[in-house]
C-alpha cells in the first residue's frame, strides 16, 4: 500500500514538474556557453546511399512482452558447495513449502536465485550464509545422523524452531546463527513472493497490478530530452 501511495504521489509530482518546466522552457536560462549545434542534414558516414536511421521513427513498437529468463532457463549455481546447496534447498523446502495455490520456494527457483544473490553480495552476508548452512548441516548429522538435506520435517523443525525470533525491520538478531536462520527465512520468502511463478499463480490481473512497484531507472542527464520538449 505504501508503495502505491508513493506511486500516486510521484505521478502527481511529475505533472507539477512537467507544468513547471513547460512554463519556463521558452524563457530558459541564458546558457553560459552556447548549446551544441544540432547536426543539420549532414550525411552520416553510411556505407550506402540510404541514411542508417531511416524509417525508425515511423516503426510501430513490437507487440512483445519481454520474457524473463527464469521462465525458460535454469540459473547455473556456482557459489555454494554441493553440500551447502543441498542444505539450502532443504531449508527452502521446509521454510516455504507450496501452500494452497501458491508455489513454494523450490518452484520459484529460490535456491538457485539465492546462490546468485549471495555470490554478488558483500562478504559479511556471504559469510553468514556459508557458516549458517554448514552449522545447520553439522547439527543435523550430530542429532539425527543424516545430513540436513536428508532430515524429515519433524527433525528439521527441531533444528530450526529454537532459533526463530520475532524482530523489527533493520534489527535482525545479533547472534550470528540466529541471524542466519531468521534472515535466510526472510530472503527465502521474499525471493518466492517476488518470483514469476508466484505472480502467475495470483488469481487475477488486478492482484498482479497490486504487486507492482515504481521502478526508477538511473536518472541520467537528459539534455536531448530537454531539446525535444522545446520543439
Amino acid at each position, binding site marked *: 500500500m505504501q508503495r502505491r501511495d508513493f506511486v500516486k504521489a510521484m505521478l502527481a509530482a511529475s505533472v*507539477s514538474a512537467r507544468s513547471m518546466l513547460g512554463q519556463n522552457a521558452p524563457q530558459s536560462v541564458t546558457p553560459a556557453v552556447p548549446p551544441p549545434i544540432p547536426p543539420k542534414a549532414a550525411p552520416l558516414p553510411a556505407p550506402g546511399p540510404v541514411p542508417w536511421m531511416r524509417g525508425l521513427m515511423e516503426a510501430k513498437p513490437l507487440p512483445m512482452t519481454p520474457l524473463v529468463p527464469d521462465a525458460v532457463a535454469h540459473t547455473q549455481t556456482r557459489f555454494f558447495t554441493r553440500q551447502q546447496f543441498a542444505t539450502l534447498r532443504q531449508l527452502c523446502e521446509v521454510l516455504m513449502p507450496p501452500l494452497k495455490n501458491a508455489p513454494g520456494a523450490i518452484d520459484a527457483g529460490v535456491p538457485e536465485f539465492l546462490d546468485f544473490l549471495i555470490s554478488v553480495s558483500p562478504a559479511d552476508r556471504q559469510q553468514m550464509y556459508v557458516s549458517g548452512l554448514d552449522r545447520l548441516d553439522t547439527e543435523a548429522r550430530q542429532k539425527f545422523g543424516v545430513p540436513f538435506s536428508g532430515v524429515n520435517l519433524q527433525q528439521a523443525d527441531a533444528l530450526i524452531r529454537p532459533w526463530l525470533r520475532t524482530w*523489527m525491520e533493520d534489527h535482525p538478531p545479533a547472534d550470528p546463527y540466529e541471524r542466519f536462520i531468521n534472515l535466510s527465512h526472510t530472503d527465502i520468502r521474499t525471493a518466492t513472493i517476488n518470483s514469476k511463478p*508466484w505472480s502467475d499463480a495470483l488469481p487475477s490481473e488486478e492482484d498482479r497490478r497490486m504487486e507492482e512497484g515504481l521502478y526508477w531507472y*538511473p536518472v541520467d542527464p537528459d539534455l536531448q530530452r530537454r531539446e525535444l520538449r522545446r520543439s
Partner: protein
Amino acid sequence: MLDEVDVLIIGSGHSGGMAAKVLTEKGISCVMLNAGPVADIRKDAELRQAFTLPYRGFKDPGKVPHVFQANEFNANTWVDEKEVPYTSPPASPYNWVRVRLFGGRSLFWSRQSFRLSDYELKGKSHDGFGDDWPISLADLAPYYSRAEEIFRVEGTPCGLPQYPDGNFVPPEENPWCEAMERYRKAGEQLGVPVCRQRSSLGVNGLASSINLLLPDAFETGKLQAIPNVVVRELRVNPATGLIHEVHFVDRISRREMSIKARVVVLAAGTLESTRLLLNSKIANSSGVMGHYLIDQIYGAGIVCSVPEARDGRSTRELMEGAALIPRFRNIQTKAKDFLRGYALNVSSSTHPMNPKNFAAYGRELEEKLESYSGSGVHVGIMGEVLAHHEHCVSIDKHAVDAWGIPVLHIDTRYTDNEFNMARDAVDTSLEMAHLAGFEVLAKNYEPNPPGYSIHELGTCRMGDDPNTSVLNKWCQSHDIKNLFVVDGSSFVSAGWQNPTMTILALAMRSSEHLAEQMRQGNV
C-alpha cells in the same frame, strides 16, 4: 551573458525552494544550481513487478549500503555511495541518505509537520545543557504560520506547550479509531499525552519544493535554474571579504566553470553545505563549523496486535488511525537517566502484518499472517540527540568524489543519553500496550545508526556570539556578509520534531531579511 547574478542559490529542496520563492517574489533575480538532473517520472520510472528486475526486488548488493530506505525499485533515486563517497570510523557507521534530483529530499519525505517549542529553542535555560538558540518560538511563529499555510498542514490544536499549535487545515474525518482511543486512555493513566498527528497535505498528494515553492518562483520570471552542476568551491575576494565567485563542475562533461554572484544562499542540505564551506576554507573563524552534528534517534519501538481485530474482524473504525505522543519527559518532572525527550509515532492499520513479527514458518506462519491481518499497531521513537562538540564532520584528506572534490569524514555516535532515552521509550510503549490490552509481538531497544532519520542538523550552528557560532540569527555568516546558509545546518538543538517546517520557517525568515538588507544596500 550575465556578468553577475544577484543571488545564487545552491540547492533546490525545501530550503532552496523557499529562498527562491521569497526572493523572486520581492523582485530579486536568482540563479539556482542543482547537483543532479530533473526527474521526469514518465521517462525515468515505470511500474514493474519485482520478478522483472535484475535482483528480484532485493536491494542491489553493495549499491547504497547505508541507505536502509533503499530497495531495488528506488535505488537509483539516492546518491550513489561510490560516486559521492564519505568516510566514518569503522566502529561508528553513519547513514548519510542523500537525493540530488532537482527538488532534493523534498521529493521524498514523511510529511510530519511540527513546530519546535521553547523547550528545544531555549533548552539550556530549561535544563542547563548545550546552548539556547538566539531566537525563540515567538520569533519563528509568524513564519511557521505562513509555511504551514503553503504546505497545508493538517492538524488539531492540543494546547500543549511542548507541541505548539499551528495554522492548521482541520482534518476531514475526526473520530479516533478504537485502537488509538484505547492507547490514548492507557496514556492517560500514565500521564502520557496521546495527540493527533500533524502532517503536510500539500497539493495533489505532493508537498515538495517542486510543486509548492519553485513554480511560484519561476512564475515571477526572476528565477533561472541549472541542473547537473556540482559546486566545488566558494571564493572570497580578499579585498572585500565577500564571496564573489562560485566555482562548479559540469556533472556530465566535467567542464570547470565559475559564476559571479552578489549574494550566495547555500541550501544544499546540512552536510553538503558544510562540506562545501569546509572545502572552501571560509566562514569558520569560530572553529565550530562541522561540529555539533545532531539528528534524531529512530528505530527503537514495538509492534503489537489488537486481539479484537483478528480473524477477519478488522474494520476501519477499529484499526485505521495514527497518533503522535509529543515529548512528555523532562517537562514538569525529571527523567532519571536522560535529558530532553522523545516523541512516539503510533499507527494502526487494516493492512496485512509483517512476517518478521512471528516466530513461525511454513503453514503455521501463513495461518498466523491470516489470523493477525489488519490487527497491527506500530509504535516508534523520534528522540532528540544532544549536541556535542566532538560529534563532528571534517574533510577527509585521502578521498575524493567523482569530480575530484574532497569528501566528508563523519565522526559521530550515540551516547548513553540516547540509549537510555530509547530504553525508556520502548518500556513506556510496552506499558501502554499492556494497559490497552494489545498483544506485543516484537520490540527493539537499539536505535538505527546516526543519520538514518535523514534529519542531520547543526554543523553551522547559529548564535549571537561570532566566537561560538557560524551563523547569526538570520542564518547569515558572521564572517562573510553575503553568505546565507538556509538549510538545517543552522540548528542549535535537534528536538524530537521532524525539522522540515522549522527549516522552511527559517529559510523564509532569513530570505526576507536578506531581501530587506539588499534593498537597503547593506548586502
